[in-house]
């Protein structure tokens, strides 16, 4: 085992931190968050040009051949600065789901366009009654000629309002399939809303929409989605570790400045103990994140440990 970053990985980490330092002052983040889409398309292109979207994609699929460690390095850096661009949604969830879907001309072209920052794809998988059960899909796919029509309600679709295409799961007799739908197609309705952190999401109702392309036929769609979810869990946990780490540093610096009762807050043992507890939580979170990355390829069930500890 070796828990140190390689020279290449260190250079990626440095590059992310330079990007955040340059682009993510408090003021510029605030104005970006307040914009119509809640992030910057220009910065998304910068992220693509830096090769970050394809960092954890195999070279065979048009990526740069990295893996979950690269994803975690990027997301930890983004978490420190609370980066707003849809990396989790488009750069991990949709990308890794597609990467595990059967090869096809449509899939290959989509991956290429995502990596180039030309197309934003949102995975519309979750449903209200699923309560975190990734296999619970009530949306249905029905045969329509040679293709499919979809009916159902997808909830909390990350970055749905800015998506060029939706990757939708629906169930047919053979099992769960993965379908491509244009958000502005007939019989698709979206209700856009914000999350507590200002993120943009939407609920989507499919009311007999005709599918543009089938990415994975019914019965073959679940495995790619589980893969995308596993990968994005690593991303979310790494983002949380980055945010926690930044928050701990900011708080550490502040308690050394603020004075009450004739002393700095850092002089009070009660505050010291809380700070120590936070450091313990942070380090344990990082440890279980590493364990999750180690098991990503072999033991998908391990992902839940990271989620239980880091995002609670």
């Amino acid at each position, binding site marked *: 085992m070796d828990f140190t970053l390689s020279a290449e990985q260190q250079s990626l980490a440095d590059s992310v931190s330079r990007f955040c330092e340059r682009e993510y002052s408090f003021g510029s983040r605030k104005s970006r968050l307040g914009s119509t889409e809640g992030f910057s398309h220009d910065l998304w292109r910068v992220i693509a040009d830096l090769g970050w979207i394809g960092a954890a994609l195999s070279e065979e699929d048009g990526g740069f051949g990295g893996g979950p460690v690269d994803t975690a390095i990027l997301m930890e850096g983004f978490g420190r600065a609370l980066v707003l661009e849809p990396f989790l949604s488009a750069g991990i969830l949709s990308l890794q789901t597609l990467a595990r879907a059967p090869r096809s001309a449509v899939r290959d072209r989509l991956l290429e366009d995502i990596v180039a920052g030309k197309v934003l794809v949102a995975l519309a998988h*979750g449903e209200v009654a699923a309560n975190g059960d990734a296999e619970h899909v009530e949306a249905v796919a029905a045969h329509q000629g040679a293709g499919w029509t979809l009916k159902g309600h997808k909830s909390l679709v990350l970055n749905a309002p800015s998506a060029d295409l939706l990757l939708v799961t629906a169930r047919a007799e053979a099992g769960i399939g993965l379908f491509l739908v244009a958000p502005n197609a007939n019989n698709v309705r979206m209700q856009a*809303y914000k999350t*507590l952190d200002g993120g943009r999401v939407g609920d989507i109702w499919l009311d007999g929409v005709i599918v543009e392309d089938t990415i994975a036929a019914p019965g073959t769609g679940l495995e790619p989605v589980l893969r995308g979810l596993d990968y994005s869990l690593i991303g979310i946990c790494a983002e949380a570790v980055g945010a926690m780490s930044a928050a701990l540093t900011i708080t550490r610096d502040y308690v050394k400045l603020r004075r009450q009762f004739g002393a700095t807050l850092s002089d*009070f043992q*009660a505050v010291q103990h809380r700070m120590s507890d936070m450091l313990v939580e942070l380090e344990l979170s990082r440890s279980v994140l590493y364990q999750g990355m180690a098991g990503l390829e072999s033991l998908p069930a391990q992902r839940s440990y990271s989620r239980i500890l880091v995002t609670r």
Partner: protein
Amino acid sequence: MDFTIAPEIHAFRGEVRGFIEAELPADIARRGRHDYHSRRDDVARWMKILNKHGWSAPHWPAHLGGTDWSPLQRYIFQDELRRARAPVLDRCGLDLLGPVLCAFGTPDQQARHLPPILNGDVWWAQGFSEPNAGSDLASLKTRADLDGDHFIVNGQKTWTTEAHFADWIFALVRTDQVVKPQAGISFLLIDMTTPGVTRRPIWSIDGAHTLNEVFFEDVRVPVSNLVGQAGHGWSYAKFLLTHERTTSSVVSHTKRDVEQIRYLATLAKTPSGPLIETPAFAAKLARLEAEVIALEWSVLRVLHAGEGDPAGNSVASLLKLRGSELSERAALLAAEALGDYGVAAMPSSETDGVAPPDLPPIDDDEAVGVSAKAMFRRAATIYGGASEVQRTIIAKSVLGL
């Protein structure tokens, strides 16, 4: 020991419940279910209804507009208001300033200021905290210098709740710069329309505007607006903060939260049935309920203890500490009961029934304000004496450490 509740107490609860059911306007009750911060016009309308019945300020002395209810009756009254989702009243006027004026105000001050508070006509803000005087309130810097028959006030207050509604503010100000910090503080009533008073909103994490900064620049305040004696402000502030010592438990709010959680979790679906029937969630709810019951019985013990009773003081010391923790946890569990929509941002106010754009698809009155509440409640263990300060007080005053 006798744990039975006297029949007249049951009857009293029934009378209060009947009154609220008959008199609380339906539109106000509906907004109450939303868990939004109460609107000033709702509060004023409800206060007038209560005042007509003589129930605006049951904890004030009867001859100044209060009642002669026992502490238990006053608790039951508040409990029923929360249960019915009635607006949260103007706490600054009723609970904080009112008792101080009743005890230490001049007859003129009482006659001028108390009736408009009772009727919801005049809204008050509390000017205590400053940027560098939070838990350590005695280090406050806002000064009031005597100039003939006026004080000249200069300084800044912060985290001032509802100051944007307020017509008046009662402020702790430093009138003596030489003596030790607590001895130089006075309690001053300031008309918010006086030239030199400005307010600036602080937007909180729930997206709402309830908090403010208030600035004083050469504000002239008549000496007749001084409450009690100059230099005694600290003791009045301590009186005010300990006047209703069970209020800080917010147990009636949290009991209502438990009901809300049960309601939402019964509606929430999971692949194996309603959320409330899943073992993991049911266990969390049971744990919360047990702790809320323990808190409420602690409140009951304090209500039945005399002022100087050491056992009562011991229990009273935990009410704010544990009450604020449970309040945070209850709001988070309510958000959890919303599933996906628990992370959706909802506005924490409503303009005349017009829903703002960009809302998640939840329209149940009980659900819409939950996530905002969960965010705002994060402050409960900080304001009104942070948990660290509470623990230090318990260690010193109860355990004698």
